[in-house]
């Protein structure tokens, strides 16, 4: 079913209603765009190089720089290689984006959206911090391992949906989030004043010699050549499976070969300069919009556009910062520009509708739902007692008792109850999103609301020199609701169609990630404060904010019974729901508002990166709780249980240090989630 929906490349990726109608077979639009970008890049390059070196010396600097003249050395060994690297990386990403889109039949596939860049980056970061000797074998191998692992995870997560475009991109986002969470954990746990990881991860194109260029050239060349040899079979991959198979193409082999070549391109780029956001997506999409219909044309135009794009962006960054300015990573800037592009693209892509997933699920229904719920409840009570009473102190592990009890409870109770409420709210929000969208990968984390809250927090930290906790909370709430408004504004056009909303969330999250990268790359110590909160620490929760969270949760839960009928119906699909006489628009809007409130209230406590919203409903469903109400109760209990457990582990595992609870939940949750989503 999903296979049929994954429409073929040639017909469906054109922006709806704006089909370019250029005469002839040439991608005129793409060529014009390329020319315009090249002109801009050339002008900027001219201006940059003029600022560095008098024109009379240009040829000398290019051919044989005078080693005594620093200006010539800089042009020859810093400016020109940087230019070369920007061209190479831009072209490689554009090519990789096009191949990914073709092989996955997915107009939103790109190095970032399918999680490959994040995987490569994480592998390199892990190797740098934990096993530097691995890097001696070659950065590319480490990056490749990470990239392939990420891709495998994404494909495994979206396999049962027939690799439909939306499920792949959502799985890609989840994998990126997970990789990002681990990366953040590394930084938080190794608190130091030097943040080199940030600069590199944000895609600084700065060069000191030609080595990166010479390193990239053969590797990218080989991968590009492999793709060039596969143009014909890759074209056939754009057809549906039956059509391709009837032409005698060994589909699986070419799919894998195409994917492997694209992943290699991405891994090499990440190994050389870090993550360059969104160039791949932009180049591939612009080539298509510009009229490159045939794969052969796309494979030429996308790299050209990608190279021109990154060249122009990088020269623009150099104009803005000056040859000596503070360092702004180009990769983060392209991501900043790319996220709005993704938002703009959303309504213009024919993505097809997603099939409801939970309705078709063949999981067994439990007979004794009450028994299961009681068992989880009992477990939760046990965990609560443990979390409140048992922890290490200066004299080792002890049960709190006597006069110690009250003092310790005054610290632990707010944190535990806030974690409890946040976990419960996230679980409910996730359940509602999954029932609303019929997509098992839906959750508040991918709705963009968490990102909005985090964005507000960031503004507060950087705009005000001393942001107290109430100010931070106010800012985060404002951010959450601003994100909700943006998401709803985009959703309104599509009558709140769930998949559009989720993708808007993806774009918002990407925008937010890019901003974080830019800020952290400046090495500002305040970035550490932000990271600390992002990783979901319950540390700062005092009695007042715990009470606030618990009260909010309580009030929102009072409204839940009103939603249960809708939540039972929504997975049946839009047509069925309307057939039952329900106003779909209003229902969706109300559910979304509820999700937004739940998410904002919980994000403030545990940060935007947990997977509770994604995980808890699945666990409840796995236990055989099929109808909305028992599943909701089960999910809420499971969500609270995981969060309380995560908070306890975070407080005690490396005493007196602490691991943020949100991070522990993510680290536990990721593998559990992958296991849950694997279909037998």
């Amino acid at each position, binding site marked *: 079913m999903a296979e049929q929906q994954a429409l073929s490349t040639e017909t469906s990726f054109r922006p709806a209603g704006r089909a370019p109608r250029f005469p002839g077979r040439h991608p005129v639009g793409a060529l014009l765009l390329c020319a315009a970008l090249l002109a801009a890049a050339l002008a900027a390059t001219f201006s940059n190089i003029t600022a560095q070196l008098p024109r009379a010396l240009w040829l000398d600097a290019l051919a044989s720089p005078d080693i005594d003249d620093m200006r010539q050395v800089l042009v020859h060994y810093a400016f020109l290689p940087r230019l070369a690297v920007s061209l190479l990386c831009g072209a490689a990403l554009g090519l990789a984006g096009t191949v990914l889109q073709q092989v996955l039949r997915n107009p939103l596939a790109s190095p970032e959206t399918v999680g490959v860049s994040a995987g490569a980056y994480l592998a390199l970061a892990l190797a740098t911090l934990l096993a530097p000797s691995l890097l001696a074998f070659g950065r590319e191998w480490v990056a490749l391992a990470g990239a392939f692992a990420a891709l495998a995870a994404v494909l495994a997560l979206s396999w049962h949906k027939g690799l439909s475009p939306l499920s792949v991109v959502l799985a890609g986002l989840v994998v990126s989030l997970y990789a990002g969470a681990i990366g953040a954990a590394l930084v938080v746990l190794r608190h130091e004043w030097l943040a*080199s990881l940030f600069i*590199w991860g944000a895609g600084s194109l700065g060069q000191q010699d030609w080595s990166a260029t010479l390193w990239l050239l053969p590797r990218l060349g080989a991968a590009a050549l492999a793709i060039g040899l596969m143009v014909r079979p890759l074209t056939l991959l754009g057809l549906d499976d039956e059509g391709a198979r009837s032409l005698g193409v060994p589909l699986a082999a070419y799919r894998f070969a195409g994917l492997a070549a694209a992943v290699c391109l991405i891994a090499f780029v990440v190994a050389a300069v870090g993550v360059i956001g969104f160039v791949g997506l932009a180049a591939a999409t612009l080539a298509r919009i510009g009229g490159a219909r045939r794969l052969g044309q796309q494979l030429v135009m996308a790299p050209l556009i990608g190279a021109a794009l990154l060249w122009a962006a990088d020269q623009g960054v150099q104009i803005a910062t000056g040859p000596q300015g503070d360092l702004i990573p180009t990769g983060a800037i392209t991501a900043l520009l790319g996220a709005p592009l993704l938002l703009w693209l959303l309504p213009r892509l024919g993505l097809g509708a997603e099939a409801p997933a939970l309705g078709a699920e063949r999981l067994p229904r439990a007979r004794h739902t009450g028994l299961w719920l009681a068992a989880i409840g009992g477990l939760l009570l046990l965990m609560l007692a443990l979390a409140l009473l048992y922890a290490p102190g200066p004299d080792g592990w002890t049960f709190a008792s006597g006069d110690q009890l009250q003092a310790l409870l005054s610290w632990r109770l707010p944190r535990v109850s806030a974690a409890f409420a946040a976990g419960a709210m996230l679980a409910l929000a996730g359940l509602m999103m999954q029932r609303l969208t019929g997509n098992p990968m839906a959750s508040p984390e991918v709705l963009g609301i968490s990102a909005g809250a985090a964005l507000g927090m960031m503004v507060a930290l950087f705009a005000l020199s001393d942001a107290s906790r109430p100010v931070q909370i106010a800012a985060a709430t404002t951010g959450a609701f601003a994100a909700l408004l943006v998401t709803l504004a985009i959703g309104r056009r599509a009558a709140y169609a769930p998949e559009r909303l989720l993708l808007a969330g993806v774009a918002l999250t990407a925008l937010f990630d890019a901003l974080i990268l830019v800020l952290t790359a400046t090495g500002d110590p305040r970035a550490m404060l932000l990271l600390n909160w992002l990783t979901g620490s319950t540390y700062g929760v005092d009695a007042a904010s715990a009470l606030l969270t618990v009260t909010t949760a309580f009030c929102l839960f009072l409204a839940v019974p009103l939603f249960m009928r809708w939540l039972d119906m929504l997975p049946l699909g839009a047509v069925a729901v309307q057939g039952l006489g329900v106003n779909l628009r209003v229902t969706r809007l109300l559910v979304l508002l509820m999700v937004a409130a739940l998410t904002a209230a919980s994000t403030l406590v545990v940060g935007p990166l947990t997977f509770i919203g994604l995980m808890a409903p699945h666990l409840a469903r796995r236990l055989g709780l099929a109808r909305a109400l028992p599943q909701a109760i089960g999910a809420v209990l499971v969500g609270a249980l995981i969060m309380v457990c995560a908070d306890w582990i975070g407080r005690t595992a490396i005493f007196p240090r602490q691991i943020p609870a949100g991070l522990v939940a993510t680290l536990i949750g990721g593998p559990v989630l992958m296991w849950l989503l694997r279909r037998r």
Partner: protein
Amino acid sequence: MTRRTALALSALLPLATVMPRAAGAKPLRIVCLDDGLAETLLTLGVTPVAVADREVWEKWVVEPPLPPEVADIGTILEPNLEFLQQLRPDIILSIPYLDGIKPLLERVAPVTTIGIYTPDGQPYQRAVEATRQLAALVGRQKEGEALIAATEAHFSDVRRQLSPFSARPVYVVNFLDPRNVRVYGRMSLFEAVFDRIGIRNAWTGETNYWGFATVGIDGLATSSDARLAYLEPLPEGAAGTLTESPVWNAMPFVRNRSIMRLPPVLMFGTLPSASRFARLLAEALMAESARG
């Protein structure tokens, strides 16, 4: 002369610690969350009960040594509150950077916040004021004034010693990776030290209020006669790759062989760090001139 001042100062330390205290007064139990304030406390002869991120002391601060009995209460951003309470401190020393957790800390003990690095700059003056404030807090005003005077005296010694070197400016940097550095300028403690020992800072560009800017190493090529002083610790792999880079090898200070490797100095420190920086820089410059 320099050595002598430094030696005199360090000789004071053990004395100060064993000196009999005011009759019957129990020593204050101080938890210090900032390494800069902690180094001043230690130099005044007061050992805090606990500090945050104990293990980075060896790597970033080094001097004065941290006594082994000082407890570690976790990271600077999230000092363990339960542990903190069980330590029963009389006072917690904090910095404005940690104002977010101040209400939590205040539940354990009174918090004194001392800002050295703020948007208003002037870290040296602030460090002097902080010294007086801390000295008054622990009842060691005399030692406090002695520390300030010794630091000033040390600077004028170093200034005399370094007068042959004052013509050429100096960059002070930390390597982030082989391509990028943090260069310290206006608003930094090192700039204040430069002013007092008669050395010009080669970096005249903007800095943030912690006193540094992040730039690629080619950003350090504008001054043709500058020397470079880089601080340890180095990130892994920086030293090896640097020597191969043509830009690095064409940098004026590499070609003049005017590069100095300095042991770690806390860049966000107070008077002891300022003094340590002046001493290490002077030693490095003298060693360079001795090499010819």
